[in-house]
């Protein structure tokens, strides 16, 4: 019976995981018990400290998918495909959190859960592109053509990312622009610390999730090849019993 060896990558993974967990606990206490409540919106503004870092983590996943897809189109390998797929999966997870926390905040701040604001619309569109990627990979098989098509989708999906980012400046809308190049609109140092910690945590979380999913996908590819080899060698009858 095979026993899993504890390798260096396991040590790095668990150190990162422990760091993420500790920082998460600190962040949650900091946000709810130390960071001041916003004067006009009240406690619902604290959604911001999760919503914005989640949107940032969505970009990390999308960028990973983009680079994995480009690399796959240049030279197809299992690892590149797995990395792109992991990036898309992470984007869907983080994007879903963004699209849930945003409307929860909007219900209080705007009096409505959803409005077809440019940033909300472009974010939804981008989320749907990565969701389509995941659905395609889940149901369209795992052949070379499907992988290439998914890689093309992963590259095209990234085209929407700058549009999400600059949509507020270009087309206006109701979405707040608290974080700006000129220093931002957070009026208390604790607000800035809470947001900074949020960015750190969700960067770590995105790295951990992309790494984990890549590893699972690579394992799946190895299993598929092993099954094909077993069938070629006529060993499949032994596994049918």
């Amino acid at each position, binding site marked *: 019976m095979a026993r899993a060896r504890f390798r260096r990558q396991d040590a790095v993974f*668990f150190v990162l995981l422990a760091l993420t967990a500790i920082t998460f606990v600190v962040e*949650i*206490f900091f946000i709810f018990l130390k960071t001041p409540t916003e004067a006009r919106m009240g406690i619902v503004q604290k959604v911001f400290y999760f919503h914005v870092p989640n949107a940032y983590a969505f970009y990390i996943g999308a960028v990973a998918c983009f680079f994995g897809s480009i690399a796959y189109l240049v030279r197809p390998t299992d690892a590149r495909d797995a990395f792109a797929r992991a990036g898309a999966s992470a984007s869907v997870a983080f994007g879903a959190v963004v699209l849930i926390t945003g409307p929860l905040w909007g219900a209080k701040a705007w009096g409505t859960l959803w409005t077809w604001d440019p940033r909300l619309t472009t974010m939804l569109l981008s989320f749907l592109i990565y969701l389509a990627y995941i659905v395609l990979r889940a149901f369209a098989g795992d052949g070379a053509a499907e992988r290439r098509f998914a890689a093309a989708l992963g590259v095209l999906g990234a085209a929407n990312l700058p549009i999400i980012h600059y949509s507020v400046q270009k087309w206006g809308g109701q979405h707040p622009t608290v974080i700006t190049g000129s220093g931002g609109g957070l009026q208390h140092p604790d607000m800035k610390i809470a947001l900074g910690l949020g960015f750190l945590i969700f960067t770590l979380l995105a790295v951990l999730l992309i790494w984990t999913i890549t590893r699972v996908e690579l394992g799946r590819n190895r299993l598929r090849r092993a099954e094909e080899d077993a069938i070629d060698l006529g060993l499949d009858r032994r596994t049918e019993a």
Partner: protein
Amino acid sequence: MSEEMQPSAAPQSADGRSTTFQPVTGEAEHYSGEALLVSAYALIWVVLLAWVGLVWRKQGSLDARLDDLEREIEKADAKSARP
């Protein structure tokens, strides 16, 4: 602790034991509800991250089994290639 809340040293008869629990009135709450809520929220994240760690460990043991399987397939391949 107030004097009336201390347990009586005298043995209680079956008729004398308490049959109701009365809430304390007029005192501050023993635990901060806000801190408990935040602790619960933090715990959810810790459990979620522990689950990610568990998935990683499971994948590690699956990889080891795959190593064995690939070795066996290579052996079978070498055997079948022999004249």
